[in-house]
């Protein structure tokens, strides 16, 4: 099987991509909010990653490189998606219609519904919350993926977390924080 030059490194590279599929799909789901679109996006990301393998700098983290590819591929998909009326902006407004008010109130009590609350946030907040708080990327890595300065990452991330706290009823107060179940 070792016919090509560097075949074993290609094997390892490919295996690492397969190993990261759960992470890729998780991020794709948050971007697209649709399982079928997410799977398409993952597949397309892997295609581009494999085709552009030579461009990966092994000194950097593969996850960060793949998330950058995925995000650019997703932006392309959004550009191609037809919308009624105005162009769908990448940074869309908060999706007030997606979740009814009572469910959001109940979400204050349930960690499971963090996902539901995240889904209502604007995409620029969703993606930054995922990259830093879930995937554990650094501010600098995230800034490179989003093509913005680190300062922008920090302000956007802070706003996103404050928004999340507000919707989840998280106050930071140990006695009265609503992350304890059963409290109102």
């Amino acid at each position, binding site marked *: *099987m070792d*016919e*090509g030059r560097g075949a074993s490194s*290609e094997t390892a590279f*490919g*295996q690492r991509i*397969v190993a990261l*599929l*759960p*992470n890729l*799909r*998780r991020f794709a789901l948050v971007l697209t909010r649709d399982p079928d679109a997410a*799977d*398409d996006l*993952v*597949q*397309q990301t*892997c*295609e*581009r990653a*494999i*085709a552009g*393998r*030579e461009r990966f700098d092994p000194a950097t983290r593969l996850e960060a490189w793949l998330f950058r590819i995925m995000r650019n591929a997703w932006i*392309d*998909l959004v*550009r*191609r*998606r*037809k*919308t009624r009326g*105005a*162009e769908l902006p990448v940074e869309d407004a908060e999706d007030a219609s997606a979740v009814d008010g009572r469910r959001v109130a109940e979400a204050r009590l349930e*960690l*499971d519904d*963090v*996902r539901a609350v*995240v889904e209502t946030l604007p995409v620029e907040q969703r993606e930054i*919350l*995922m990259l*830093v*708080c*879930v995937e554990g990327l*650094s*501010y600098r890595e995230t800034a490179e993926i989003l093509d913005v300065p680190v300062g922008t990452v*920090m*302000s956007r*991330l*802070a706003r996103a*977390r*404050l928004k*999340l*706290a507000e919707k*989840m009823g*998280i*106050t*930071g*107060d140990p006695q009265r*924080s609503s*992350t304890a179940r059963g409290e109102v």
Partner: protein
Amino acid sequence: MAAVTDERLMAYADGELPPEEAAALERALRADGELRRRLALFQETRTAMNAAFTPVDEVPPALRARVADMVAGAQSATVTPLRPRRAAPWRGVPLQLAASVAAVLAAGAIGYMVGTGSEQAIEGGGGLLAMEAGGEVAAALDTLPSGQELAIDGDTRLRVVSSFMLPGEVLCREVEFDRAQGGTISVLCRTGDAWRTRLAIAVPASGTEGYRPASAVPVIDAFLDDMAAGPALGPEEEAEQLRAR
């Protein structure tokens, strides 16, 4: 001491502060309950995100299999397709494009035409395609910003998706034509005063959902790669290119 910003507290919570600054902040935290509360807010949101998303959903077996095949295919390929730097004159269909087109045709969802550079009209897509775009379409391509739509011919909707440059300062635009009985995704490039179709893919009518078949996307990508296309232009750059004649 100046008020500690949210960003600073957050950076501390995320381990992004250098050690000296972290130590200084810890001193402030010991003395200030409100500061501690605000810090906890950032810590708890991170914990909540992590807890909610860390049990990762299982990857659908079909997707996993497709990617595994992709990986295996890449390992056994004898040609490594990289983005060619030259603007190759068309001599038939480039290898990378041919492979992805074959995959798409096998899926049966779309037909395709590739501009060979000849002057013949291309049939298909309900007669929408011709090598040189007619007056109304050309005028739209000269002026319409990406993302906007225009009704032409009464029953046809034209939507410009993006603009990009080919080597040699050639301006191209990715365009969707949509009619009730079907449409096309096309790439047209401006040479002199004329817009000529370089690629056209016939697609089903978009209907009410407005989604393009994902299978069309790799064909376009392969075409763009083979033509060494630059990235999509941002709004200012695009406006500048459209103004330049």
